[in-house]
């Protein structure tokens, strides 16, 4: 364990050493690539200032609001298509065609329709969360194992019992995957929205500000926070999923 730990730490430490060394030797332009010590100083200055946490809070709130809307709609749409064959045939192909549009290509249209304000950002985030939730919900409820449904038939379950006792629980692991992916896409979209849809509060605004003022240390810190929050969100979703669907994977 400890050997593995140190091995894993080697490349980042190596990069840090080269980076600092190059800075000291005057091989890099300190305006473009400031040495690590300077980045650490900036990080300390920024992290002790509540502004960064306000920005982070604004981003997270936006992300969750968009996820709630997009994920909720995705759940309904996915259930509809997964449970009803006519809905599947009617809506499915259109959905699969539209999901091919690279997500960022929607931005100009969304900007035209919703303006450049908060509404547009939330709409974009919701759109990003929608697709993975639909796909996983759909696959989850449509792929219920036959044996389970046969047991339900033998027990003379009514349709709603079949849904509540068999299909939904069986779909739970897949649903949770959808939630996890949806959250990750929503987070990515949050930063994208803050980046593309006008300047504003939030982590994206911090990144833009750092870039515009050539404050590399600030940008670096923003990117670290961005990755950290993404990791934290996906861990929360995973743990929540493990709790809600503890049988994950070992069904039948």
């Amino acid at each position, binding site marked *: 364990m400890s050997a593995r730990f140190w091995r894993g730490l080697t490349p980042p430490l190596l990069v840090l050493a080269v980076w600092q060394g190059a800075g000291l030797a005057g091989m890099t332009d300190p305006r473009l690539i400031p040495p690590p010590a300077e980045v650490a100083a900036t990080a300390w200055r920024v992290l002790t200032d509540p502004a960064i946490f306000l920005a982070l809070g604004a981003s997270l709130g936006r992300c969750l609001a968009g996820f709630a809307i997009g994920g909720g709609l995705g759940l309904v749409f996915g259930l509809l298509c997964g449970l009803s064959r006519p809905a599947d045939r009617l809506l499915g192909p259109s959905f699969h065609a539209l999901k091919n549009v690279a997500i960022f290509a929607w931005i100009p249209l969304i900007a035209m329709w919703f303006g450049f304000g908060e509404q547009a950002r939330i709409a974009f985030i919701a759109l990003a969360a929608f697709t993975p939730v639909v796909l996983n919900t759909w696959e989850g409820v449509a792929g219920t194992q036959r044996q389970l449904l046969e047991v339900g038939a033998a027990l003379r379950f009514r349709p709603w019992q079949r849904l509540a006792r068999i299909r939904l629980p069986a779909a739970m692991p897949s649903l949770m995957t959808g939630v996890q992916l949806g959250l990750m896409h929503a987070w*990515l979209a949050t930063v994208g929205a803050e980046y593309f849809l006008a300047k504003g509060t939030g982590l994206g605004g911090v990144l833009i500000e750092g870039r515009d003022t050539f404050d590399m240390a600030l940008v670096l810190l923003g990117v670290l926070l961005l990755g950290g929050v993404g990791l934290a969100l996906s861990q929360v979703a995973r743990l929540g999923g493990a709790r809600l669907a503890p049988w994950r994977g070992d069904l039948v």
Partner: protein
Amino acid sequence: MSATLALPRRKLAPTAWRRPGWPVALLLPLAGLLTWLVATRAGWLTPAILPAPAEVWATLAELWQSGDLQSHALWSMGRVAQGFGIGAAAGLALGAAMAVSPRVDDYLRPSFLAIAQVPVIGWVPLLMLPLGIGEALKVVIIAKAALVPVTINTQAGIRAVPRGFVEVAGAFRYSRSQLLRHVVLPAAIPPIFTGIRYGLTSCWKALVAVELLASAEGLGFLLVWGRQMFQMDLVVAGIVVIAAVGFVFDGTLALLERRLQRWRTA
């Protein structure tokens, strides 16, 4: 595999595609088209919100005839080809090295996971400072989009080669290179190919993002230009082309993938 990075497993698309239901499937798009047509004709939608279908079509035709469309598409595809080539090659090498040698895996995995964790958009401002906003930035960003899924799937694919196969090869006293060529590669190619397909899709998405941000040519630029000129027909036409290219890429690879998987069921 760490669950934080679990790739959205590409199961085959829900079955609607393969069932004979196409007439029904066309109902919704037709209804949408009709609504669109009526709404623009009746003036419920101003051209600034959504231009009429005929106008979008005319714009597409015009772009095609003037050769603009082809040249922008060529720019975009050239970028994707470069970035994807670099990223996929690096991913194959990295994934294979990490699968074969536990030591390499120990050294590189934490760093790789950290890099993979930051989404494409996060890298843009960071790389913009040292690389500028030229071609290098775009190619690096696109390469990173391909690198992550290709590495993960290559490693997982090679690791998942059934032990039995390797033992049989051992019984036949295969050399290391024979083992690699005749056993490991054939068994690992289907999952690796899934990674490649997923990588190409992510490349296309990343391309649109970087072209929206900073470019003077390419399909993403078409969108930016249309928006700045308030020419919504151009924007919609651009979206249609981007979707069509993405669809063709993914569809072609999906076909190839099915080919590669065929021997498994046989």
